[in-house]
């Protein structure tokens, strides 16, 4: 029987009630009395000299309050980058300025040039259109290979040849890796593209800047995954507002997927405008604007080589990757193709030698940063594709070749050759589970059935690992992070019962308001309904680092456990006093304190009341009150892993690919709420199938975005996707956090693209079409063309 509350229970989500009744409080639902409206004028060309921005006529139009241009920010900082990478030669990466509003040059379509503040959106829009621009268009550079060819336009003077960095990892293993290829029995080489994507959370970004003149306090309401990080970056590095005069509130946020991690120009502009004009201002992004102002994802070009011995054992891997940074460095962009990518190249395998070379490149396109998975999908895709190709070349079954190379279950902790050390895992176990839940045994019969319908059926698998719970501050500091990556939590027990948990994690769909109380409920032995979660407001909780990289339960949950443990420790001392016993003899179980070997007991509620009404209380040794804060900094990443299987049906005549089935067997460590974990995996797989079959962000040669709306960018719809079989019963608990949890938010998006493409290639091969590889998305035209080319 499943539990009905606490850790492991499928508790229904309490936040659903407001979302289902239209009572959510998203940023665009907030209106501040007297607010004005901001509209941005953005560059319509990808690259050009910005010779003139004449606002005179526009400023005189009805309703216009003020127009800001790049000159207003001349003395103010630009947007900071939060991660510094060093090149192979030891030099720091090229880090060109990222202005809030463009000055002198525009570098991508959508680069903001001016911001109009007016009484209404319509007036602001009309005025923005009346601003006179003189932009001398320059040749744009879009393709990464062109960008570093020596013959391309320069995006930034500070980055010669458009190179941001040239990173090698692990540099000490480079020669040994090259040598291993010399003598290898077999080498498989694959060149592939990890297609550029647009995150497209359903809620577009919104900012409201407010300023309280008497107190000098600025408030920013924003659609953010990490309001404390925005307060730090914007306050300290852009606007020079100390944290005690700046409050950032991210209320209900309608999805993030990475795109709402970063500090954006619009946030700085709205905060600055409110303070300058002493009036609240609101900016609501529409979808067309989101396509040219949200950071985008992926966009890697990779050549991967795998060296194998005669038995199919992996000897070495080397890769060369070009990673698109776009026109400016978004907040965490440099980390994605490096430390979130190279460190995952061991996958679930014992490959002893790995060397990755990554060149990050500036182009006249939107900035690129983390999107669900962030570097780990790119690593998994190339690895799981090249393994499949190698298996086919060597005549080894794709499951068997993986099994021959899995890190054995008794090898933990396992030190990979790419810096990270896996604490625990069982990859044979998840593969066994997958073989069972995906019914591999029945595949040949299903293939025959598809054939009878005139379709080619393929089966593709993938074994993935990810590094989540990002991560130990000391380690990420060594790797170039300019931030700590702890998490915080304050647990406040109220006098008359009830607990408020203030977490630095942020929920934008993950269901923290439900899962976090499940943990505290279990620990304190009180009903979940007695526990309330507060998040998303720098004015109401301790400094926290927010939600991304599947870190909330692994890091934020751990901080919550630590704070709750402090509560229990203090409450035990209070209880001991009330029961006239030594605290060492007091036990706490199911909400009741008792003295071992006696019938003395006192409940948690009485202890809480006593803490605030300390009439009979050990005041000489213990402070009154029952409120504790913990900051938790993990000692390692967590390593969720699993195996995925996709079956597709391909129509040879049209190239149309349909997902026939999809199964996932994951090891997420311990599970807090299985219903929510299932939902996270479903969503990740949906996005992964989207990347593999549908989604593609495309620029033309002049840098115009050709896929700039939902009419042109193929978002997965209900009739594109199947029902998923999801299993997370394989559990190897994380050994270094108190809940034994690993995180589940990104797995689906990491493991599914290679499974889909492996399935498509398998289907084509089964029909006698000698197709080795297809780049994503495997759209009908590409599949059809691949079939024709193989003839």
């Amino acid at each position, binding site marked *: 029987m499943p539990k009905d509350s606490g850790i492991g229970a499928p508790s*229904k*989500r309490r*936040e*659903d*009630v*407001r*979302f*289902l*009744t*239209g*009572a*959510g409080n*998203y940023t*665009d*639902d907030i209106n501040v009395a007297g607010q004005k409206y901001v509209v941005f004028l953005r560059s319509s060309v990808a690259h050009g000299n910005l010779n003139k921005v004449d606002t005179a006529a526009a400023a005189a139009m009805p309703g216009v309050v003020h127009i800001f241009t790049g000159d207003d920010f001349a003395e103010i900082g630009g947007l900071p980058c939060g991660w510094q990478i060093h090149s192979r030669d030891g030099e720091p990466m090229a880090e060109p300025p990222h202005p809030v509003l463009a000055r002198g040059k525009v570098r991508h379509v959508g680069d903001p040039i001016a911001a109009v503040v007016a009484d209404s959106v*319509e007036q602001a829009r009309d005025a923005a259109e009346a601003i006179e621009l003189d932009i001398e268009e320059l040749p744009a550079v879009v393709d990464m290979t062109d960008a570093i060819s020596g013959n391309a336009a320069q995006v930034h003077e500070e980055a010669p040849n458009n190179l941001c960095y040239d990173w090698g990892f692990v540099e000490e293993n480079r020669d040994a890796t090259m040598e291993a290829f010399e003598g290898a029995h077999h080498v498989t080489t694959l060149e592939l593209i990890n297609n550029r994507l647009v995150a*497209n*959370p*359903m*809620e*577009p970004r919104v900012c409201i800047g407010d300023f309280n003149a008497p107190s000098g306090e600025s408030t920013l309401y924003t659609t953010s995954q990490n309001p404390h990080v925005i307060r730090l970056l914007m306050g300290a590095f852009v606007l020079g507002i100390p944290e005690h005069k700046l409050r950032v509130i991210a209320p*209900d*946020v*309608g*999805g993030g*997927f990475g795109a709402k991690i970063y500090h954006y120009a619009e946030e700085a502009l709205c905060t600055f405008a409110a303070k300058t004009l002493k009036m609240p201002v609101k900016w609501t992004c*529409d*979808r*067309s604007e989101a396509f040219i102002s949200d950071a985008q994802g992926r966009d890697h070009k990779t050549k991967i080589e795998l060296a194998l011995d005669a038995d199919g054992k992996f000897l070495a891997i080397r890769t060369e990757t070009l990673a698109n940074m776009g026109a400016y460095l978004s907040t965490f962009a440099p980390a994605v193709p490096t430390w979130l990518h190279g460190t995952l190249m061991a996958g679930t395998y014992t490959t002893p030698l790995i060397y990755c070379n990554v060149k990050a490149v500036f182009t006249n396109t939107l900035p690129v940063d983390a999107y669900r998975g962030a570097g780990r999908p790119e690593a998994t895709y190339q690895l799981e594709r090249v393994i499949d190709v190698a298996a086919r070349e060597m005549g080894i079954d794709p499951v068997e070749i993986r099994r021959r190379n899995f890190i054995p279950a008794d090898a933990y902790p396992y030190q990979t050759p790419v810096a990270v050390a896996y604490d625990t895992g069982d990859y044979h176990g998840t593969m066994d589970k997958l073989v069972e839940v995906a019914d591999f045994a029945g595949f040949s019969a299903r293939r025959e059935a598809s054939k009878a319908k005139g379709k080619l059926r393929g089966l593709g698998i993938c074994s993935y690992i990810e590094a989540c719970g990002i991560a130990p501050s000391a380690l990420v500091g060594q790797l170039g992070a300019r931030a700590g990556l702890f998490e915080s939590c304050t647990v406040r027990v109220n006098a008359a019962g009830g607990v408020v948990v203030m977490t630095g994690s942020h929920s*934008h*769909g*993950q*269901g923290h308001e439900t899962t976090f109380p499940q943990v505290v409920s279990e620990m304190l032995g009180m009903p979940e309904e007695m526990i309330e979660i507060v998040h998303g407001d720098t004015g109401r909780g301790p400094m926290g680092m927010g939600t991304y990289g599947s870190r909330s339960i692994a890091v934020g949950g751990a901080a919550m456990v630590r704070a709750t443990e402090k509560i229990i420790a203090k409450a035990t001392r209070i209880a001991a006093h009330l029961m006239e016993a030594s605290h060492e003899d007091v036990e706490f179980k199911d909400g009741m304190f008792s003295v071992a070997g006696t019938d003395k007991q006192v409940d948690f509620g009485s202890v809480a009341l006593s803490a605030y009404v300390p009439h009979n209380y050990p005041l000489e040794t213990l402070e009154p009150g029952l409120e504790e804060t913990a900051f938790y900094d993990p000692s390692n990443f967590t390593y969720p892993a699993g195996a995925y299987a996709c079956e597709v049906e391909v129509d040879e005549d049209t190239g149309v690919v349909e997902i026939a089935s999809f199964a996932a067997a994951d090891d997420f460590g311990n599970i807090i709420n299985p*219903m*929510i974990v*299932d*939902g996270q995996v*479903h*969503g*990740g*797989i*949906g*996005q992964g*199938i989207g990347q593999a079959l549908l989604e593609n962000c495309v620029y033309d040669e002049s840098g115009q975005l050709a896929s700039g*709306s*939902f*009419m042109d960018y193929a*978002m*997965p*719809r*209900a*009739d594109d*996707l199947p*029902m*998923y079989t999801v299993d997370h019963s394989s559990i190897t608990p994380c050994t270094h956090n108190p809940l034994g949890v690993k995180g589940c938010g990104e797995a*689906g998006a990491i493991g599914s693209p290679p499974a889909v493409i492996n399935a498509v290639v398998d289907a084509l091969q089964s029909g006698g079409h000698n197709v080795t590889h297809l780049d994503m998305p495997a759209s009908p035209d590409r599949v059809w063309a691949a079939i024709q080319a193989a003839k």
Partner: protein
Amino acid sequence: MPTVSMTVNGKSVSGEVEGRTLLVQFLRDHLSLTGTHVGCDTGQCGACVVNVNGDSMKSCNMLAASADGAEVKTIEGMANDDGSLGVIQQAFQDNHGLQCGFCTPGMVMTADDLLARNPNPSEVEIREYLEGNLCRCTGYHNIVKSIQAASAAMTAGE
């Protein structure tokens, strides 16, 4: 400016709007019914779906003036009279049919329209009817399950 009058969730409302004011703007900005959301500007995402005279409509694709005299139902009108969740809403909660909640009002209103027309839709029919509603969180699995559960509950309740 023209005045429009309509019935929204059973209440008579009226207001002065510009000719270009969209129904969704009238609902959100004039009536403070912010449960209806705007997720795109090309009529693709369906976050703004409401019911107008018995048909589900994308309220970003309709002028407020065009809804003059209409009977409009929004997500705020979907709960039971006692304030408890209606059958479809309850099915979404029971089946984890929502995550960030932003597309949810449009999903519920579209499901309401589907089940009014086809009380026992197949999985394929549900997926096809959701063609105009985008969700980025759920991969649709639990949305389909929610609508199936609502269908079963409504059929059982008859």
